[in-house]
């Protein structure tokens, strides 16, 4: 028997320590937030709260738990992104300052930034495509992002940005179609499966990559 009927004893024995660690981490981080005056620091600390959540979910130790972790991660990431953007927008309105929109320095001549990105990004993207799904999307996304971040060429037009976000919308539709196929006509489940995995891959990857493109767009305006 490859898969046991019930959860193995060792996983059960690890549940309680893991749960307690999750609760403890959550508690410490929440205490930190409640005594924190600065908004940015509170935002950083919420990241740790998310870590507590992940541990609690992981503690269940089944395949289902893992399937629940995957998206939880992505949700956490997306929320941090949206909220940090709001924070920046608020501060810009408050200070009313025009700042150079460059998030990362490129004046440094770092050796790694010249040679490594092409290769690393290629590996990551190819590997991400092989993986597909949420995981592959995240991996390939980091690849695109890293490539965009480290390149010095800045000729990306604004339209392309919208194009990339368009791809992700289309990808979401592909994924939905795949999902529907799985339920409506289960006979061609294989097609549905492939559509779903590649839809999610495209979607997640393009969205992750957007962050990098976002950075470049800002650099260009500098």
């Amino acid at each position, binding site marked *: 028997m490859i898969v046991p009927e019930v*959860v193995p004893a060792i996983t059960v024995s690890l549940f309680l320590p893991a749960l307690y660690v999750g609760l403890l981490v959550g508690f410490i981080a929440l205490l930190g937030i409640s005594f924190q005056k600065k908004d940015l620091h509170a935002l950083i600390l919420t990241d740790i709260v998310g870590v507590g959540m992940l541990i609690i979910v992981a503690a269940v130790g089944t395949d289902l738990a893992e399937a629940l972790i995957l998206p939880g991660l992505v949700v956490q990431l997306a929320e941090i992104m*949206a909220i940090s953007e709001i924070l920046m927008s608020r501060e810009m309105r408050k200070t009313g300052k025009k700042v150079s*929109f460059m998030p990362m320095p490129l004046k440094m001549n770092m050796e790694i930034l010249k040679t490594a990105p092409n290769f690393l990004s290629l590996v990551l993207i190819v590997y991400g495509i092989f993986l597909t799904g949420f995981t592959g999307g995240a991996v390939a996304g980091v690849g695109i992002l890293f490539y965009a971040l480290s390149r010095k060429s800045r000729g990306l037009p604004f339209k392309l940005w919208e194009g990339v976000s368009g791809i992700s919308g289309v990808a979401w539709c592909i994924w939905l179609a795949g999902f529907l196929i799985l*339920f409506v006509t289960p006979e061609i*489940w294989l097609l549905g499966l492939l559509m*779903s995995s590649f839809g999610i891959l495209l979607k997640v990857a393009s*969205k992750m990559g957007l962050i990098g493109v976002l950075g470049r767009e800002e650099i260009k305006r500098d």
Partner: protein
Amino acid sequence: MKLGRLWNSLANPKRIPRVFSIILGVILLTGFLIPMALNDNQLYPRPVPQEQINQGNPLAPYDRGGEVLKEPGIVKSQYPQNEPNLGKITSYLTPIAISVKNSTIYYGTSIYSSPGGLIDEILYYTRGFDTVLESTILIMAFVIASWVALNFTMRREDE
């Protein structure tokens, strides 16, 4: 009147996350007093960790049996009656994945992350609606972030 002042200060948006987190923290602490244990009769149970890799299984740690396109893998789902193709996705491997499987025993994770595999089965088939929502959350958060970025933080001088 002190109570009135306290109530007024509670209405300050900046205080609210702090108040919320302290309440939540206290409730989390009560978790230590409550007897808790994992109910071992779970859905989708998995084998003992490291067991499959120790056996030299090239599909470790996600091998759930079954044969490609012939025999479904073993999945303990909630409502098997709703899922005519239960386990087939679990056992499915792409041709590339099969070749990877034959060449090395250390790439089980990658094989099961490519189309087919247990997690895909759960994410797309048995609990597909969840994944719709998750990717919707993702797309919405990005829409919001990119919209704010495009229209406020980046092109503010256009206003």
